[in-house]
């Protein structure tokens, strides 16, 4: 009965979220509509990170690289002229596909790199995967600078206004929203399926998973490919959302923000990272904006506050706010019942 209540509350809050999200652009100033739309894309990054880390237990510190691969893939597909005069000049003749195909290609190319890196690194257990993925962002950013003719170096490049997701913020907002809903829904169905069980078994105990007959390497790679695919989709959408692509969009700070959101929301819960992603991204880019240099005496800025939140959550609700609030909901009926008895 309590379980049902948790479910009811989950669907209820999801329903409210859906209605709020759909009507928000009518209340909010344009600049904030733009920001909340970006938040939806960020949520895809957090949830896809949760697939490989939270569900499968493989620590991926290079998730932003896959976001970036998706981003540059679509950007270069849309602006193939960037290849002109480089050693890859023959690529400049490729005709640009429609934007939505281009975004999907971003996911596919990202998944492909995930597959290659996964096959090499996930054969071994332990810290190997974490180490390799931790180095990836350095290599990736370096390559962007080395081939700056193509990738645009530090400034990156623009894909042009005409290749935006939509003409105005509200249009972009809804496209971002539905992309997020679709992506999260697919990932939800995956983790709820028998494949999700295998991921969780590997996370719980790899040797044991192998002993019951699971090809753990295969499923670790599969998890990584799925995770990279949606990271790529998110990255590609960001490009058409902001109309530009550049290395700063995929750097260490973004990785930290993803980790923060997933951990605070609750690893391996899918819903937790959605909430975490939403709250943390808006905090960082809206509610805490202007905190920088607030005081000369106390060194408090937005980052410090985010880390304080992380520490508080780690102490009070180490499994994340999602599991924490679920536990509170589960306890509620008992309290009510007790009250009803005593009065």
């Amino acid at each position, binding site marked *: 009965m309590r379980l049902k209540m948790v479910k009811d509350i989950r669907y209820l809050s999801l329903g409210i979220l859906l209605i709020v999200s759909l009507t928000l652009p009518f209340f909010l100033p344009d600049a904030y509509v733009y920001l909340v739309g970006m938040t939806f894309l960020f949520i895809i990054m957090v949830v896809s990170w949760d697939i490989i880390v939270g569900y499968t237990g493989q620590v991926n510190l290079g998730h932003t690289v896959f976001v970036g691969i998706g981003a540059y893939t679509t950007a270069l597909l849309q602006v193939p002229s960037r290849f002109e005069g480089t050693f890859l000049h023959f690529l400049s003749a490729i005709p640009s596909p429609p934007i939505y195909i281009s975004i999907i290609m971003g996911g596919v190319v990202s998944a492909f790199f995930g597959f290659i890196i996964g096959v090499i690194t996930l054969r071994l257990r332990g810290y190997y995967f974490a180490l390799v993925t931790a180095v990836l962002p350095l290599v990736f950013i370096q390559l962007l600078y080395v081939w700056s003719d193509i990738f645009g170096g530090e400034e990156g490049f623009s894909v042009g206004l005409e290749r935006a997701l939509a003409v105005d913020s509200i249009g972009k907002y809804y496209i971002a929203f539905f992309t997020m809903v679709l992506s999260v829904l697919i990932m939800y169905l995956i983790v709820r399926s028998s494949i999700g*069980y295998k991921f*969780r*078994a590997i*996370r*719980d*105990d790899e*040797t*044991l*998973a*192998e*002993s*019951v*007959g*699971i*090809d*753990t390497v295969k499923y670790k790679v599969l998890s990584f490919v799925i995770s990279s695919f949606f990271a790529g989709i998110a990255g590609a959408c960001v490009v058409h959302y902001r109309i530009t692509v550049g290395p700063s969009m995929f750097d260490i700070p973004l990785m930290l923000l993803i980790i923060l959101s997933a951990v605070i929301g609750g690893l391996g819960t899918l819903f937790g990272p959605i909430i975490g992603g939403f709250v943390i991204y808006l905090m960082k880019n809206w509610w805490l904006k202007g905190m920088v240099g607030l005081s000369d005496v106390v060194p408090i800025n937005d980052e410090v506050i985010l880390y304080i939140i992380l520490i508080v959550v780690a102490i009070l609700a180490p499994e994340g706010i999602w599991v924490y609030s679920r536990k509170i909901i589960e306890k509620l009926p008992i309290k009510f019942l007790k009250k009803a008895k005593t009065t």
Partner: protein
Amino acid sequence: MRGKAIEVENLESGYGEVKILWGLNLDVVEGQLTTILGSNGSGKTTFLRTLMGIIKPWDGKIIFKGEDVTNLSTYSKAEKGIIMVPEGRMIFPEMNVYENLEMGAYTKRAREKFEDSLDFVISLFPRLKERFNQKAGTLSGGEQQMLAIARGLMSRPEVLILDEPSLGLAPKLVLEVFETIKKLKDEGLTMLLVEQNVHLSLAITDYAYVISEGRIKIQGTGEELSKSDEIRKAYLGL
């Protein structure tokens, strides 16, 4: 004459540069209970890990029902029905009891017989049924061991391998575990048991090996080993 389920020839392995197994020879006969005895650190678990392919054999051969499976991966061996319940009550702690049993029946050949296996396992461990929805990590030590064995049985093993199933259990539960093993043996299940509890093991086993420093030092039927004072003193510390 019964066939051999597993034949191990001159098996060698270890960790890094350190050799732990120095050429092990051992047979598991179909329908029998075979036991490996030995003191702490003698290489029992290392042997089982090598047998399962969790660590790679350095040399030697593993034959399963006449087929060379020396270099097969662990999951392929599980698919063939070589099922191990690892040391230390290994369960999936974040999954509930029922999900753990489902994971046990992961392979295709086990999944087809899921309902049958479940009935059998519940008849063996009725207590598990009351706890289907409980997170396995919150079970008591004894219950976790029951679950681990139950999960092994859900896999429909051709050979069930148990690594110290009585370790760390209260005396009453130890007896229960051995009674269960005896029952399974009477059902005709082929088993390979690693134990430190010499008395109880020798009382129910068909055949036993004593391992020391990575080598088989002595072997014989349960009866033979129980009787030999010298063996007991030298290798079993009794």
